[in-house]
């Protein structure tokens, strides 16, 4: 997993509440086994019309936000189905950070396990950031995970955010659950070697 240290890029304001995983990535795209290639279908029913043409009014179709790396959105983002394609689709589009007043629990965990940073802020702060992303000619924000700060295009004082230290450690070091286990592979190997020596009868039969 790629480490997450700082992320600099356009932030798209999308202040809808209860954005569900069916909207993030509809079930008809779930047949794929691959984690990549889903970005084109991200928010499909909002992004495209019935003929498959882009809807110019949808935020990610607007020139300022076509390459958004950050999404600023409303309460309970990611509710509904537990599909892990939701973070995959966001990542494949290029969005690695979502800022919202609250997230649905399963999505929250799925996102972190796939190297995304989700930032929970009070509603007023989320709305302020969305406003700035909307009005700034260049809506480039910078997220500094080490410093736990969001730097704003307006140049106003950075906004601090809280994050669980364990999740921060995993993101900064690019560790998913397997990576985390492999961090301790020396200890695991030493334990197994010792066990083979001290309790050989526990070993599976060979041959």
């Amino acid at each position: 997993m790629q480490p997450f240290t700082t992320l600099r890029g356009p932030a798209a304001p999308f202040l809808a509440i209860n954005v569900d995983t069916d909207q993030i990535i509809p079930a008809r795209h779930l047949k794929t086994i691959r984690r990549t290639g889903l970005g084109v279908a991200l928010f499909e029913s909002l992004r495209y019309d019935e003929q498959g043409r882009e809807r110019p009014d949808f935020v990610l179709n607007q020139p300022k936000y076509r390459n958004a790396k950050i999404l600023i959105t409303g309460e309970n983002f990611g509710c509904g189905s537990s599909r892990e394609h939701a973070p995959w689709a966001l990542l494949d589009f290029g969005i690695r950070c979502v800022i919202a007043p609250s997230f649905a629990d399963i999505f929250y965990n799925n996102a972190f396990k796939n190297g995304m940073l989700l930032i929970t802020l009070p509603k007023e702060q989320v709305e302020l950031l969305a406003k700035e992303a909307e009005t700034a000619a260049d809506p480039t924000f910078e997220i500094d995970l080490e410093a736990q700060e969001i730097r704003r295009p307006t140049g106003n004082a950075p906004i601090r955010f809280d994050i669980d230290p364990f999740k921060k450690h995993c993101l900064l070091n690019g560790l998913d659950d397997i990576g985390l286990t492999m961090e301790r592979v020396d200890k695991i190997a030493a334990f197994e070697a010792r066990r083979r020596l001290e309790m050989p009868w526990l070993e599976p039969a060979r041959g």
Partner: protein
Amino acid sequence: MAETLAQKIVARAAGRSSVEPGELVTCRVDLAMLHDSGGPRRVAPILERLGVGLWDPSRVVLVSDHYVPAVDPESARILDLTRRWGRAHGVARHYDMLGICHVVLAEHGHVRPGMFVVGGDSHTPTAGAFAAFAMGVGASEMAAVLATGEIWLEVPETLRILLDGRPGPGVVAKDVLLALCRMIGLGGAGYRAIEYGGEGLAGFAMEERMTLANMAAELGGITGLVPPDRRTLAWLERAGVSLGEAELTRWRSDPDAPVAATLRLELDRLAPQVAAPHGPANAAPVDEVEPVPIDQAYIGACTGAKLVDLRMAASVLRGRKVAAGTRLLVAPASARVWREAAADGTLATLTEAGAIMLPSGCGACAGYGAGVLAEGEVCIASTARNFKGRMGAPSSRVYLASPLTVAASAVAGRIADPRPLLAERREPEPIGEEAARVG
């Protein structure tokens, strides 16, 4: 220290004498459930990377219910992969095209009071109808559970929902949930464990309790819990699980256990509810909803196609016909529901009224199977979610309601109140008595 039911189950699974809300604990998983969509094809690559197998195949239940029956080579391949994986890992319990996972778990007695259950599906809390602490997770988390048999979590606070009084005719569990979605909003429970209580709860059949627990997902609860009673014992008995009377008193909250909040709902004042597109929280009493003409009525999904749900629909449809220009699709939640509905005459009633029967499975609810919607079509469904584009074309519109209201709407060809149709019956039809079940 007085504890809630959620705390008691989590403490048991964590091997602790007690736990407090907010603590991080590691629980041993009693049962892991995974299905064909989020299951083997997602977890297999992770387990292969780790070089490990299943911690205990006897505690794993596999269900193929999303891509069933296969409609194209891709879905056939997913089902094939699921079967192979189950065989390769010694998973003896693979319910292959036998019904929707949450319903199958209950039918076979896999979920019982005091159990700690993890499922790769957001409606896993359905098992809470049997007083099991059941939570949904994504595929990466499920892979970790399969490898270790453990999961860590923050002990949740409890949101207590008290159901007072008795519901009037035409009002069922689905109406309770839609009203709750409106009251507290999607995600309004905010990670808490939802625990149902109140004198009105005793009157709800087990399948109705499953609907209450199921839609804890929409409320944002980590799980939904119904304390066990004699109905619970009777259901489990039928599934071949005998449970001592002591478990009835063991698996309930202490009366003075602190909870985060208590919400009361007066069942006798509740009207049938309809949730407008595109969210369950857009619910309102049926008589306040515009009688929109409908193209399709759909009775299906874990939330709305159990035997009780089919009987509800039949109680409205007996001797009536689906309106011209409207189609009624019915996808029974499991193979057993099919058999029982055939044996007691429910299926005949439905098909005589004009219902089109579809295979058991998750089906059109999430846009997987037969019965999806065209651009601009309007549907009323007994499912749990009406998110934009979920059931078909992005511009289709789905209303949510109980099986009674869906059936009444199918007869009227527009959104309709089931109460006048039920009132025309001389005697109300029993729909929720497990004792009357056959097969």
